[in-house]
């Protein structure tokens, strides 16, 4: 397959044109026995029934859709068009109409083909569907529009496939249909208008010629061959009752699928629950799930490949492996690929049993029986959220064999890691899917990184380099509250309470750390313990200043310790909040600002002076902070209306009045002219 075919696969857009003319209302002549009940001897058995050719065709089309949409929930689109006296589309390219239930609903209202009533004005024909199909194909899908909008280096190619199910007399009539279809494509390409439509670059036309089982047909099969640069043709001629099988064979080629037969599934007999027999279930999935098997030893591959009965494709037979325990899944990392599956015979009892088994959360291991009789586990079937997947399991050795243990490397000999604390941290930071879709300005990944950053602003790796994290009886809930984005007033109280209790402990001269032989800090004097504890607590609080309330906790520590805020860290932080709020009023999360504080503005200076003047009392009291804030609110609050431009440019005169020169620009202009 060429790169262009890979990039723009024909299976992105498939259109079915199904003949709905009176001829298709005819019985397919393949009867279905309806003899189910015991009847009195001599009773006449119920008459067998016949499907019409329309029923056979549309069933097959829906089965095609079912399999494709089961395996590819997105990106593989199918439209169905019926044609009798006019053409009718059953669905469009939008994802809401790309499901089997939608189609069934619309088919119900379409009904069976009409009985033949000669109409001189208009004939019944499949040809009416051709134009509709061509029009459908030039219509862009969402994916095509998105790609075209991206303006990549490679221009988007509109490649598609059309499958026509009809009945023709002989080979020349097929040629006729083909050339009519070809003309419709050429015609439609002329009416392309960007951006909603796109001319067809290439179309793969598959004509399925069908007829009642009882007659013979002169139309012969033709393998895919090019007709023109934009059209390939393939013809299959098949009695109506076999369309279903034919279409699923084509499906495997169209979507590059493969078949796996799970063999030897033990099942209880329906009639006799005590005995069990072995069944086989066939599933379809992307062909790449088999690559590993087929690339391995040729002889081994031959041993598992078998021709599928009654079809012209091959299936790979893999043996069911009865699960022994619940946790016998292969290692998390030995699965190399993952593909959705769907059962081929969805209604059969063995399929239903396997599906239920998987949907109930159990997994099935599949073994490949090698030529020599050896076995190796090659695949796993498992369901997640009601969807079943086949996993390829790598059976090879690993290059990571015999690695150096992490304990032998740097940091490996350290024994005092805060493993339990980090465990708690991880549990507090579990990822969960959200129903809200992310928008351009909301990026959950960056949010998550930001959140992790805050929680690790001060996070010692080992127990011996911290005191406050070893004193949880005192320091909680402060340690966990302070790392939050926002803390409530009540939570501020709780944090302060922690500081008070540490104060109380110090005044009672209690041991902070119970001396023990294993404790490396046992030699430390009690005074030193408190000293380093207070210092660490200050570092911790300083690292977590996200809101005013966070600052209040630090302020409380300063007050309790009778310490001055020497670096003016609280003030600077508060100023930063103010500034970022004023700068970007729409941003609520001012805390995402860089920790580099902005340079002090002139306003800070003013406020500073006032604060010092106004506070005759102790600069380390709560009052101080309160006053700083009050001043702040009064003075720094942005004025309620924008200032006049003239006033902003004004110069203050000695008497206190403001002076501004009006019409300055006119003056400048005249000056300039004068100079000339």
């Amino acid at each position, binding site marked *: 397959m060429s790169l262009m075919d890979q990039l723009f696969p024909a299976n992105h857009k498939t259109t079915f044109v199904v003949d709905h003319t009176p001829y298709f209302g005819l019985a397919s002549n393949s009867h279905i026995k309806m003899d189910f009940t015991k009847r009195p001897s001599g009773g006449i058995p119920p008459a067998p029934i016949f499907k019409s050719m329309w029923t056979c065709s549309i069933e097959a089309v829906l089965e095609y859709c079912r399999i494709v949409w089961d395996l590819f929930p997105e990106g593989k689109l199918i439209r169905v068009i019926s044609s009798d006296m006019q053409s009718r589309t059953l669905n469009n390219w939008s994802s809401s109409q790309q499901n089997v239930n939608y189609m069934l609903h619309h088919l119900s209202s379409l009904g069976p083909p009409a009985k033949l009533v000669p109409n001189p004005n208009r004939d019944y024909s499949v040809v009416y569907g051709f134009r509709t199909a061509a029009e459908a194909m030039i219509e862009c899908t969402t994916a095509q529009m998105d790609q075209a909008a991206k303006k990549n280096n490679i221009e988007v190619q509109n490649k598609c496939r059309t499958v026509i199910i009809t009945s023709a007399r002989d080979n020349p009539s097929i040629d006729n249909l083909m050339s009519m279809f070809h003309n419709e494509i050429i015609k439609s390409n002329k009416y392309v208008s960007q951006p909603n439509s796109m001319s067809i670059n290439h179309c793969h036309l598959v004509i399925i010629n069908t007829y009642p089982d009882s007659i013979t047909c002169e139309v012969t099969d033709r393998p895919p061959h090019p007709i023109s640069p934009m059209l390939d043709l393939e013809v299959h001629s098949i009695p109506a009752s076999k369309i279903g099988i034919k279409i699923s064979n084509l499906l495997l080629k169209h979507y590059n699928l493969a078949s796996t037969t799970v063999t030897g599934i033990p099942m209880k007999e329906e009639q006799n629950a005590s005995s069990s027999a072995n069944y086989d279930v066939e599933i379809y999935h992307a062909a790449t799930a088999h690559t590993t098997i087929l690339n391995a030893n040729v002889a081994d591959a031959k041993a598992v490949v078998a021709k599928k009965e009654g079809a012209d494709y091959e299936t790979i037979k893999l043996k069911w492996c009865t699960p022994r325990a619940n946790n016998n899944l292969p290692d998390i990392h030995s699965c190399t690929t993952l593909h959705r599956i769907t059962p081929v015979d969805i*209604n059969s009892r063995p399929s239903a049993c396997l599906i239920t088994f998987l949907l109930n959360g159990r997994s099935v291991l599949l073994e490949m029986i090698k030529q020599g009789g050896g076995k190796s586990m090659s695949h796993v079937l498992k369901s997640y959220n009601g969807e079943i997947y086949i996993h390829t399991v790598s059976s090879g050795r690993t290059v990571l064999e015999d690695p*150096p243990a*992490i304990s032998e490397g740097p940091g490996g000999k*350290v024994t005092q890691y805060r493993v339990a604390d980090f465990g708690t941290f991880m549990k507090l930071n579990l990822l969960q899917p959200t129903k809200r879709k992310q928008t351009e300005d909301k990026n959950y990944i960056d949010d998550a990184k930001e959140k992790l950053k805050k929680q690790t602003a001060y996070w010692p790796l080992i127990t011996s380099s911290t005191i406050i994290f070893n004193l949880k009886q005192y320091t909680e809930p402060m340690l966990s509250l302070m790392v939050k984005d926002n803390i409530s007033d009540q939570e501020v109280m709780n944090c302060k309470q922690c500081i008070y209790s540490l104060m109380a402990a110090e005044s009672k001269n209690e041991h902070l750390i119970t001396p023990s032989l294993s404790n490396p800090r046992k030699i430390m004097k009690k005074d030193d313990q408190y000293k380093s504890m207070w210092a660490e607590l200050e570092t911790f609080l300083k690292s977590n200043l996200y809101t005013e309330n966070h600052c209040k906790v630090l302020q409380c520590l300063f007050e309790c310790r009778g310490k001055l805020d020497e670096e003016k860290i609280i003030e600077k932080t508060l100023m930063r909040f103010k500034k970022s709020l004023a700068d970007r009023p729409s941003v609520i999360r001012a805390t995402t600002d860089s920790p580099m504080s902005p340079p002090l503005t002139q306003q800070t200076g003013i406020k500073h002076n006032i604060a010092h003047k106004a506070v005759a009392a102790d600069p380390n009291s709560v009052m101080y902070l309160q006053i700083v804030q009050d001043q702040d609110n009064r003075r720094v609050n942005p004025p309620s209306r924008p200032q006049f431009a003239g006033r902003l440019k004004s110069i203050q005169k000695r008497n206190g009045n403001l002076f501004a020169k009006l019409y300055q620009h006119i003056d400048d202009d005249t000056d300039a002219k004068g100079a000339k």
Partner: protein
Amino acid sequence: MATVIAIDLSVSMLRDIKIKDTKESFTLLQLATHGVNVLLDYLAVHSRLEFVAVVTFSSTCDVLCSFTRDYDLIKAKISQLEFRTNTCYPPVIQTINYLVHSEWSNSVTCQVIMITDGNCYEGLRKPDITPFLFPGKLIVVPLEQVSSLYKNNYDSNKLPNGLGYITSPELPLTPSSVAKVFEKIAKETYVPYSAVLRCGNLKSDVHLIPPPMSYTKAADFEIITCCISSELSIIGFLESSKVECPATLSRHLVLPQRILDECSETNEAFAKTPSFCVLLHGALKVENMTAVCQLSSNWYGLLVSWADNKKKSNLMLIILEPGTNAIPWLGDIRNLTLSPTELSKSDADETQPSKTPDKRSYNQSQLVWIKEAGLQADIQKILRQARKMPDKIPSFYKELNRIRKAAIAYSFNDLLTSIADLLELECSNLPGGTHPDCALQLTHAAIELRKPLAMDPKLTIVPMTTKYAQHDLM
């Protein structure tokens, strides 16, 4: 990572090279052996975890030594090579494909270093040369006395189909020029990958072994090429049970970086300096959890604790398929959010893996009658329920309507009258002791199926209200 060394044993490798200004002379094969020894010595120092295999080839190809880390064993084996016939490339590729596949399956990147005569310029461009079936590159070192005639015919040293490239030693050929080219290959190929492992403000310098490769994939509409950035940023954590068996591209050991220093004292000090990487590993192991990390803008990986055997466990990076939907059952990775700190239990259940909006066919009751048996099984099912009425009245009518709706969609009109016949037949066959309601319901259903309205998809056939039971209407 693994390496295969392929050594040409054709007669042309027997040629003697005289070293200028000395009396020494070497055969090309001796030079080849010398080059391999240089490579192995480099690996022994810089990349001790590398597995190396050696194959020899002429008209056929033989595995001299399967993948091993015992470089001395390889050196011993290549010191006693014997000449064979002429050079032939296709069997080499086949043998290497088979060797790599049987050893590693297809999940391991493998370098192939081929030492051959000057014939490779032409020989490796022939159409019967197939690409490798595993991820990896071919590096060809041609040993030739004079600049090849072919060399100028091909303007680049790149081989077709992305097979690899040719890199020739400087002329004249001497043991030192051969050693130089092998050192160059070793330095370019076996680069330790350094990265920063980061979780918020916690970080650790790490090496990834084997080095991660960039990844190119042709998807529908676009060719995706991804490279791993040098920062692995953790974006949150998951319980390991939620990410069983994802599809993995490759896996790598994450080892804390040590500054190369022969002095044992500093190494000792390093072992005692706390490392975030070791802490993370410990916590992931104890809690049985997984960390999700971002590798580049559109590529994610998982960090887990992994043990080769019980004693030696390690931090491992599992690289997922590029894209934001690498773990389909978690949905788009960009839509994962960190749980609010105080998440109540009920909320936690609600936000668990998002349900897929439309169910797959096997997860809903869709009827497919392409095979005769499928239809017959469905009819038998309603007949079984019919006999068990009035107990089974709701399920009988539910099933009947289901079949009827499918028949309407498929325009299978004959089916309804045929089922009506069957129900009547069933009614006439009822044994004596049957509940009278059963016969009434069967007759009622048969009459309803025969009405022209029965083909109306909006209609639902409801049970007949009889004096016998107040069954629930559907």
